[in-house]
């Protein structure tokens, strides 16, 4: 799957990009180029223990991964689970509706203002989230998407007006956010 999109540069210009199903090329870039940026810290293994999960997309149907690509370089990645998770909002437990759960959402190291100002590209995370809502709708989940935001990123989800259920003790106290049914 390759979907042509517009991506906003740090300077505010629009350039062509793609949302693609994650390929071996993208996985390579995440493991080698993104990781290469962190090698300077001399702690690559400690800092990098998540690519095995991205590889699950090749073995298990319930996982899907997508990237935003500009200039053939992966600028952000999202890994979703599409079969096992249910809404945390519905009661009773037995009637909880299925949703898309975001296992991982990450932008490339250079797409954040505190690392690079202006960043190379802006809005990568928002683009991936919007795409995943459409994927949720396509799967029949009406746009429902759940995730646990990392500290420092929860402001992004609050700005998106994504309802939250506060800290989740089962996930080290990370705040759980969940988009409900998508209204057009």
């Amino acid at each position, binding site marked *: 799957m390759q979907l*042509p999109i*517009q991506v906003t540069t740090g300077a505010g210009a629009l350039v062509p990009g793609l949302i693609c199903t994650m390929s071996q090329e993208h996985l390579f870039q995440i493991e080698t180029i993104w990781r290469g940026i962190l090698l300077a810290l001399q702690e690559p293994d400690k800092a990098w223990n998540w690519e095995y999960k991205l590889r699950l997309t090749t073995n298990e149907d319930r996982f899907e991964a997508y990237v935003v690509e500009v*200039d053939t370089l992966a600028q952000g990645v999202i890994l979703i689970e599409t079969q096992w998770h249910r809404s945390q909002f519905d009661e009773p437990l037995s009637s909880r509706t299925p949703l898309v759960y975001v296992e991982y*959402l990450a932008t490339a190291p250079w797409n954040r203002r505190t*690392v690079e100002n202006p960043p190379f590209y802006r809005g990568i995370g928002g683009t991936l989230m919007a795409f995943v809502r459409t994927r949720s709708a396509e799967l029949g989940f009406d746009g429902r998407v759940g995730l646990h935001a990392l500290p420092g990123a929860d402001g992004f989800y609050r700005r998106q007006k994504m309802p939250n259920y506060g800290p989740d003790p089962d*996930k080290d106290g990370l705040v759980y956010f969940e988009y409900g049914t998508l209204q*057009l």
Partner: protein
Amino acid sequence: MDDKLPTQHSEHYSDLIAQLNDPAWLKQNTEMDNDGWVEAGNGLQPYVAALKRLSDEDMRKMKEQVRVLSMLLPVLRDWMVSWELGASFEAAYIEAQTLLFQHIQRAATAQESWVKELATAYEQGTRAEYPPALLRKRLAEILTQENWQALAKAAMQDMEKRILQHAQLPAELPTAV
């Protein structure tokens, strides 16, 4: 009525996808990005922690490397597509990216002039002064003879693997009566 459901679903989906290229939505999306920290998923905590420890020097090197990669990778890809490697393209292209990235990392650390030149062109918006033919020539200079051998080997090994996996297939098929 049931017949209409797929169409309605499809239209709904198309509307959602179209939103991704809507100028008003793009503007709003950029504003919401703020500082760019959007990470979700408990397993990414070490990644985020590591990023927050990058030094100014790490960031300088990263900036150069990404600019040079953004200039060279599309040209490398188009060039290799023209080699008509078929199914082994991906294996060879991944090897080529690995080698190129290694050269760029080394050159950025040593502050070699070609890295600075390309990074500056990207930064100043003068990429157009570097047409694909010129960048292909630059790529040919960057890659060593050993690198070219490694690319050929990667493509060859991938093709060998693809052929040999079929050698075991007949044993798995039921015997014809």
